[in-house]
């Protein structure tokens, strides 16, 4: 277990370093210099370079860069809001994104689980078919199709919910984005839960538990669901990716002032520093979550750990 853990952590750190290196090299070798004023003399340039530490060797600058990125000093924004430190931009935007994302995860997981369990218990009934249809639709359709449909019918035609996000009605205006964002989560989790539950329900120990007289909710939660839930950790990775890409689009559609829409604006207006900072944040979040997921695997199910140690998968 220790060896496995160390290996996972080492790989995560490696990945983060590779990303930092790529970002650093891009900054380094992009054409142009930060000091473009033609009136600057050679001496002044040297002074400026010294002030910002640009006269030091590449290696030292790389380490400085790593230090800056890890301590949250991402530099300033060029075009989106001039000379504002990016960390200030993030302070207001990150919580909003995290909240909408968190709501989507929560809602998606709960609805997905319930749908999956119902489909498994009422196997081969209308409920089962309904769940299958929902999960196929949810996996196949991009989240912005849902977003557009929801905002057209519930936001524009019926005006049940606001079309755009507003800070005053933070919860009410985040309902539609949350639903649009969590469709993929619902679909994936429902599909997986259904398969796992069917397998568990047909197993010998379930028959044993039933013949021992355990029944109803207790049988379902204590014996079936607990075992069915373990493999669901495996779908967490695609879910996170789906949420990340989904958030970009959803935040644009509903004009949510989060980091997703910030990245889209930054790309469209070529705000280089912001793009780099967000690329780093997205990667760091992703790597962190993947590390936790991988460690969880090992803790929850020793079989996976052993298999992983065997053939490095």
């Amino acid at each position, binding site marked *: 277990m220790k060896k496995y853990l160390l290996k996972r952590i080492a790989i995560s750190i490696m990945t983060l370093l590779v*990303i930092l290196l790529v970002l650093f090299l891009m900054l380094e070798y992009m054409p142009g210099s930060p000091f473009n004023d033609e009136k600057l003399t050679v001496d002044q340039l040297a002074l400026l370079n010294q002030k910002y530490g640009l006269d030091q060797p590449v290696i030292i600058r790389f380490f400085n860069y790593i230090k800056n990125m890890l301590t949250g000093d991402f530099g300033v924004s060029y075009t989106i809001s001039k000379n504002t430190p990016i960390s200030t931009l993030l302070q207001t935007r990150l919580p909003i994104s995290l909240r909408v994302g968190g709501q989507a995860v929560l809602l998606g997981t709960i609805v997905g689980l319930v749908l999956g369990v119902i489909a498994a218990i009422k196997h081969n009934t209308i409920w089962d078919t309904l769940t299958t249809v929902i999960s196929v639709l949810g996996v196949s359709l991009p989240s912005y*199709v849902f977003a557009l449909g929801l905002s057209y019918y519930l936001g524009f035609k019926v005006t049940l919910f606001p079309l755009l996000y507003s800070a005053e009605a933070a919860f009410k205006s985040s309902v539609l984005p949350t639903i649009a964002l969590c469709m993929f989560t619902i679909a994936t989790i429902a599909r997986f839960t259904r398969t796992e539950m069917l397998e568990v329900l047909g197993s010998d120990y379930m028959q044993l538990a039933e013949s021992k007289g355990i029944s109803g909710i207790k049988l379902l939660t204590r014996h079936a669901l607990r075992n069915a839930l373990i493999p669901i950790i495996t779908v967490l990775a695609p879910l996170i990716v789906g949420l990340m890409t989904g958030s970009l689009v959803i935040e644009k559609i509903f004009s949510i002032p989060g980091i997703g829409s910030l990245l889209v604006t930054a*790309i469209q207006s070529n705000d280089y520093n912001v793009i780099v900072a967000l690329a780093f944040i997205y990667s760091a979040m992703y790597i962190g979550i993947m590390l936790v997921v991988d460690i969880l695997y090992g803790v929850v199910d020793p079989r996976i750990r052993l298999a992983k140690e065997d053939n490095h998968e």
Partner: protein
Amino acid sequence: MSKELNYENIEFLENDFELVGKDNLAHESTLYANQSYWKDVLGRLKNNKGAIIGLICIILISFMAIVGVGLNGHSYDSQVIAHQNLAPRIPVIENIGIFDGSETMNTSQGAVEVNKYVSNDGSKTGLEDVYYWFGTDVLGRDIFTRTWIGTRISLYIALIAVVIDIIFGLSYGLISGYFGGAVDNIMQRFAEVLNGIPSLVIVTLLIIVMKPGLTTITFSLMITGWIGMNRIARAQMLKLKEQEFVLASRTLGAKSFFIIFKEILPNILGPIITNTMFSIPNAIFTEAFLAFIGLGVPAPMASLGSLISDAFKSFTTHPYMIVAPVLILAILMLSFNMLADGIRDAFDPKMKEM
């Protein structure tokens, strides 16, 4: 000891054995008709309704992507300023009251039915004989033609996804799994590090360096698209490489290349094809997503994603603009997913989700 047979003393006579002859053989093969593996797979696929519907939809859409562009006389990039924001109008069908070129406009005075093709007061609009089957966009371009041009892009992306899966992912995984040891270790650590970077980040960074466009999208698919296939191919290789037929081939003097691609590859085609099929909708989705956030193919070229993105800007006033590209994209994604599901179940009935 006396019970033991003394083989040296047994004598075989000429009539001890007799020839059974062809007629007396039990014909097991007639009881169970010889079903080849591929025939079996195909049969199972044929019985899967969803997969067949998906396949038919894909064929229809591909056909329209080839033919549809030149079908109604408009070109995808010609703009007629006088023909802005025209609602869909189709000959013949317009007589039953739908697709007659009218749309409902929501104004401050309430909803009004507007038809820009024919005016109700008898004056000429000059558009009486003009038909835009799916309407026109804000710049006066024919949405019908643009939709099929966009479909071409999506299908091209699907093709690219397959090629990348086969060329990069498959070879990488097979080679890594076959040689094992240090080679495998280095190759898999590299893939793992690359896999740890969200593809979203890779794409964004690529786009800073390169211009947005089809080449950039292709590149970003190349960087990220092969890792899943690499895993599958490697796992299959690990399963098969210790088996006797590989040993036999090696004993007979076969080289590594021959063993990998001629001995093992044909035996793992099932999972490989399944995985390739699943990577197609993913790739199409990636393109549509990139186009939607403004990183797609540059104008006047259109992709389904960029059409949806453009139409989104005016979708509360002219909702018809967004319907066609969204529908085609949705049907395409659904079809590929259903076909992939069907192919997976056909290759491995045990995997079928009960």
